[in-house]
């Protein structure tokens, strides 16, 4: 062996080691395992892993030729990487999307398979899945139905003889009564999800036009108009009168939940998705939903907020669309959806779901009997405009003047409007 060859083969050996080290398990080229075809299902709900594991096992028993590989990402990471994985079609044969900005971006990139006309679409409540439509096509199917409005301690209200307020005046009277009894009316998790959840019910009757944020983005509306300035003034009133706890902008959702679970506060300004967790913390609580009506009773058009979310979709780049559709069809069966609903404590958009738990049964009337509107925040499709809107609430809760906060936010809207 020549002098030249020795180092060359040494180098080759090192290179092979490096490449071997870099190489991971290569996926099957055609996605087929020994037992059949493997489809990828990606989503962000780690809390649903157990029930999905069970449902996937049932699905694989019924369809032995299809395996489902589920990958769960934290929601922020899902936003950052989940969608990138859709590009080549090898991951996320079945995936989920948030409504709003994420839905619009994925639709714009053409990653949604058109599900219009698929038989399983009729398993869903037609009135609740329109958020997954675009240009007349059913691109995604919202699975969960949540009510993004305060959860309240019904038992406490009964003890104090309080009625659910039907106007802004009554709401303030209710707040005063709770304060007189040493109870904080609203636990507001301002450090995380509070502003983006509570803004919806706070503005729903101040701006009954459901297109108000569409118009804001097109320049036809302004945050300095009465509907938003009044909303900010209403937030200011809640803060100044002590209806929300002091230092609310530093309060996390866990702390706010603890306040309600310990009955230090009467309402949690988040949504129905926290009811099961509250009951875990304090099983004696009797809970229901209550949105602030910020106008007089005669002017109120909406009683609450709904969001059809966790939108199931099929990757248009997938080579296993038919198998993916089988899985979505399976999830949309009423008996399967019922298991998912009851084990996760969520209302669903699927027809014929039977809710077993008290809290789901007791609040199911909000689906059919109450006038709720789709979460306005999700109609802001530009995330920077959404951030400007939310910042104005934080500005006011931090002591800022409502009009000045609205003007600052409007400037950011102007900068970010496409």
């Amino acid at each position: 062996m020549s002098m030249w060859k020795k180092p060359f083969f040494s180098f080759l050996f090192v290179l092979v080691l490096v490449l071997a080290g870099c190489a991971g398990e290569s996926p099957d080229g055609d996605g087929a395992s020994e037992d059949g075809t493997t489809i990828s299902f990606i989503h962000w709900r780690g809390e649903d892993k157990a029930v999905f594991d069970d449902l996937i096992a049932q699905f694989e028993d019924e369809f032995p030729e299809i395996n489902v590989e589920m990958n769960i990402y934290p929601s922020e990471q899902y936003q950052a990487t989940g969608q990138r994985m859709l590009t080549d079609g090898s991951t996320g044969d079945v995936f989920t999307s948030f409504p709003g900005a994420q839905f619009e971006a994925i639709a714009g990139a053409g990653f949604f398979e058109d599900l219009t006309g698929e038989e399983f679409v009729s398993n869903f409540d037609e009135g609740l899945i329109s958020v997954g439509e675009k240009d007349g096509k059913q691109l995604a199917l919202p699975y969960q139905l949540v009510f993004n409005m305060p959860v309240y301690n019904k038992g406490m209200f009964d003890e104090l003889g309080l009625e659910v307020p039907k106007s802004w005046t009554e709401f303030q009277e209710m707040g005063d009564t709770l304060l007189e009894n040493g109870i904080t009316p609203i636990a507001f998790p301002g450090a995380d999800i509070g502003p983006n959840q509570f803004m919806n019910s706070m503005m729903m009757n101040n701006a009954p036009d459901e297109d108000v944020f569409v118009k804001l983005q097109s320049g036809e509306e302004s945050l300095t108009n009465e509907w938003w300035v009044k909303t900010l003034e209403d937030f200011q009133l809640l803060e100044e009168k002590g209806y929300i706890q002091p230092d609310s902008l530093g309060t996390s959702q866990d702390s706010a939940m603890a306040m309600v679970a310990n009955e230090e506060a009467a309402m949690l300004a988040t949504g129905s998705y926290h009811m099961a967790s509250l009951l875990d913390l304090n099983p004696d609580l009797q809970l229901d939903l209550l949105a602030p009506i910020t106008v007089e009773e005669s002017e109120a058009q909406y009683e609450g907020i709904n969001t059809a979310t966790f939108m199931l979709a099929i990757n248009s780049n997938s080579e296993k669309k038919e198998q993916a559709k089988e899985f979505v069809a399976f999830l949309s069966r009423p008996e399967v959806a019922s298991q998912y609903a009851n084990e996760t404590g969520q209302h669903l958009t699927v027809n014929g779901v039977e809710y077993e738990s008290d809290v789901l049964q007791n609040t199911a009337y909000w689906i059919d009997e109450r006038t709720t509107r789709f979460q306005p925040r999700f109609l802001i499709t530009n995330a920077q405009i959404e951030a400007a809107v939310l910042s104005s609430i934080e500005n006011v809760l931090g002591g800022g003047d409502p009009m000045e906060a609205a003007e600052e936010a409007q400037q950011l809207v102007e900068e970010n409007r496409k």
Partner: protein
Amino acid sequence: MKASKSLLLFFIPGLALYAVFFLYPTISAIFYSFTDWDGLSEAFQFVGTSNYERAFTGDTVFRKTIGNNLKFMLAVVVFQTVIALAFALILVKNTKTTVFLRALYFFPTILSSVSVAFIWSFIYDPSLGILNQLLGLAGLDFLQQNWLGNANIAIFSLAATQVWFHAGQMLIIFVAGLQAIPKELYEVAEIEGASKWQTFRKVTWPLLAPSATIVIAYTTIQSFKAFDLVFAMTGGGPNRSTEIIATYIFDVAFSNYQFGYASAISVIFMALIALITFIQFKALRSDRISY
């Protein structure tokens, strides 16, 4: 000669890794900064320098993030350096106690940033948090704050967490630097009747300059590039008071799907870090003395 030439082949794996993980992303970022790419679509258009124009003239939030970054960086660089140096001076001798204490102070560095964020979010909680409760127990109620919820102080609360997180790491660098200073110089200073301050000023500090350069430069870059703690603890709020360039880039790219614009901000960010580091190196090199 041939053998030595062929040995150059050993550079290839390293160069390949450098090219794939640094050069390619950097060139890509510069390339996409001149486009309107949304990060998902295959199609995009060249938009010239409009992304840069937007950053410098039409984006109030970006300008705010630069200010927040500077506040955060200054607070971290000053306090982290001073605290690390002070502790290094106290713990420079190798005894069982000092070795244990150095390890103890280094411990936060090995924690994951998400864990640190979680712990400190709890510490800072205005009602349940340990910090306000301890202040209350000590009769210092007037110092109780809404640490992360007050837009005026939230960035400094985050800076304090960053200092706690990384000061131990800098302490070790300072200890290594201090232990490398010849003892004879201290003996001479003592014989000459130098005070402790004079000894520090004329012996310790000049000979510690290389370590200080590393600490300050590293802390500057580290604090300027901070992301995980801020993202996990405040998400940039309240009212964008803790939004820094890195979190804003993430927001623009992954929430607003404006990869082209996010790339332009990244390029500006990279240039800013390079400029600050260059100025620092120039300034600190002029302080170096050797005996």
